[in-house]
């Protein structure tokens, strides 16, 4: 009998996660194009263009990368492997890529049929993926683990399900005229809150508990912090949802503030650990991760301002700083570690001599792309206050994600060339 999750057979084929990683940046390019041709869409979070961009980013870029990464890390981190990874990846990737595109197009162009179709594909794909992941995790649960990561992964799944249910009910309101028991903007806020914190932040934190100490060689996150953080986020989200439903303003206010503080607590702790890394010369993705944490902190601050001020610019600025700056930055940094390593791993497992990671993807193109990323974040922030600059921000955004795509494609090509040209790895006894 094989041990759960450790066998090479449990490593999904290269093409299973990589298809998610390669299509993800294309959603970023689409967001850039929407900004270029969509006019002044950054003037309010309620413009069709802003809704489209948000969903291209969250349901397109972020969701695609996170699902691809989950396929890959579940065996390593949670001792759990997805059943039939290639088939699950094939079905869910297609459904969710088309679904995210349809959802964004439907929101941006005001096309109810496309919106509904996109939402059905997205939710359907998600259902298949999460069922398979839940099955894998339930098998992996027997192994025991000294981090909070497997538990927090489950919580992130739950947060994603709530986000999807809220989102789907909003689509039904918009396309089928279904009535909700609470005002529409409230449901939109809950949908965004569960998505940002319940799903994305909990998932990012679950990954960070393991990834930051190990790959950036820092001390571990304080145990009490990792024990309490994700349950505190989820509990606060539940309280906030109740406060909104019962229309208790004070509780609502406190819950949102508490969520902001929890987010800031995660970013602040991560920055503290990174500042004491034993790797004294941080590499470029590490710096990008730090930049993302600062951006998230700034985003929380702006979100707090938006509680007191009704100006339209604050929620948009918070969205830019948290989604593009925070989540976009950490995801980009992680992609630059994951993708070359996967290429290396699959070559090595095939018994071939693999080029080292910096030959598969050198530092220079990474550094250049990340410089564009910083420019893109800055331009987006300025464009929130100077709407006429939105098309310029769109150009930089499209270049940023196009370049990310090109860098990842470069790794895929390097792997293919290495597989063609490389001899067997010296001393290899792999048979895979």
């Amino acid at each position: 009998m094989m041990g759960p999750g450790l066998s090479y057979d449990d490593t999904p084929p290269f093409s299973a996660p990589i298809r998610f990683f390669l299509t993800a940046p294309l959603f970023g390019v689409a967001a850039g194009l929407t900004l270029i041709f969509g006019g002044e869409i950054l003037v309010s979070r309620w413009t069709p263009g802003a809704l489209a961009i948000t969903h291209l980013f969250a349901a397109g870029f972020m969701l695609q990368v996170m699902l691809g990464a989950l396929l890959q890390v579940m065996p390593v981190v949670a001792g759990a492997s997805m059943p039939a990874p290639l088939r699950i990846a094939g079905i869910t990737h297609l459904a969710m890529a088309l679904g995210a595109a349809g959802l964004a197009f439907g929101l941006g162009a005001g096309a109810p049929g496309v919106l509904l179709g996109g939402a059905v594909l997205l939710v359907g794909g998600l259902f298949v993926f999460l069922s398979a992941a839940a099955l894998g995790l339930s098998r992996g649960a027997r192994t025991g683990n000294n981090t909070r990561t497997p538990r927090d992964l489950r919580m992130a799944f739950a947060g994603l399900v709530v986000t999807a249910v809220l989102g789907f009910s909003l689509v039904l309101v918009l396309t089928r005229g279904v009535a909700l028991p609470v005002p529409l903007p409230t449901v939109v806020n809950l949908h965004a809150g569960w998505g940002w914190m319940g799903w994305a932040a909990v998932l990012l934190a679950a990954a960070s508990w393991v990834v930051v100490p190990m790959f950036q060689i820092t001390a571990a996150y304080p145990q009490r912090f990792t024990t309490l953080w994700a349950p505190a986020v989820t509990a606060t989200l539940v309280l906030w949802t109740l406060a909104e439903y019962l229309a208790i303003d004070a509780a609502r206010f406190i819950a949102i503030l508490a969520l902001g503080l929890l987010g800031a607590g995660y970013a602040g702790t991560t920055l503290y650990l990174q500042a004491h890394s034993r790797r004294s010369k941080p590499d470029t993705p590490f710096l990008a991760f730090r930049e993302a944490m600062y951006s998230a902190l700034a985003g929380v601050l702006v979100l707090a301002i938006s509680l007191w001020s009704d100006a339209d610019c604050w929620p948009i600025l918070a969205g830019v700083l948290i989604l593009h700056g925070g989540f976009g930055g950490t995801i980009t940094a992680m992609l630059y570690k994951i993708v070359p390593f996967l290429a290396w791993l699959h070559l090595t497992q095939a018994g071939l001599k693999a080029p080292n990671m910096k030959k598969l993807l050198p530092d220079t193109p990474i550094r250049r792309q990340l410089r564009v990323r910083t420019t893109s974040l800055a331009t987006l922030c300025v464009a929130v206050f100077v709407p006429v600059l939105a098309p310029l921000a769109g150009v930089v955004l499209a270049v940023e994600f196009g370049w990310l795509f090109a860098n990842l494609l470069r790794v895929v090509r390097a792997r293919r060339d290495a597989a063609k040209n490389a001899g067997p790895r010296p001393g290899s006894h792999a048979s895979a």
Partner: protein
Amino acid sequence: MNTISELMTHDHRDCDGIFARAEELASDGDWADAAEALKKFADALNAHFDAEESTLFPAFEQATGMTQGPTMVMRHEHQNMRDTLAALQYALDKQDADDFAGEAETLLIMMQQHNMKEESVIYPMLDSRLPGDEQERLSASVGKHLGEARAA
């Protein structure tokens, strides 16, 4: 008394620290000190592998009845890391900073994903499946072996 998990996880972090030192010296172009740090790292890594391959993995195989499973994969990954360590040594001998950085990056990720598996699956299973006195005996003998390697 430390559990096997605590002892071995602590040793992983120790190895990480020595590795980071070698990496830093090489990136500064201080090849003489980098060579010394890399030797220290290689000794620590090999002592860790030896302790697992000669003591802990056989105990795991006996306790769980899994002889062709996780431990086989772990031994295979040890071999991959030994190969990458040799490539790292070769880059150091040539004083090729780019190659050294690339091989170091590869080894670091290889090492960390391997550590994750050991710390999530192998060590906790040893802690839970072995009888208390057996754990104590193994812990003491492995701790002594690792300590001697550091002192050497």
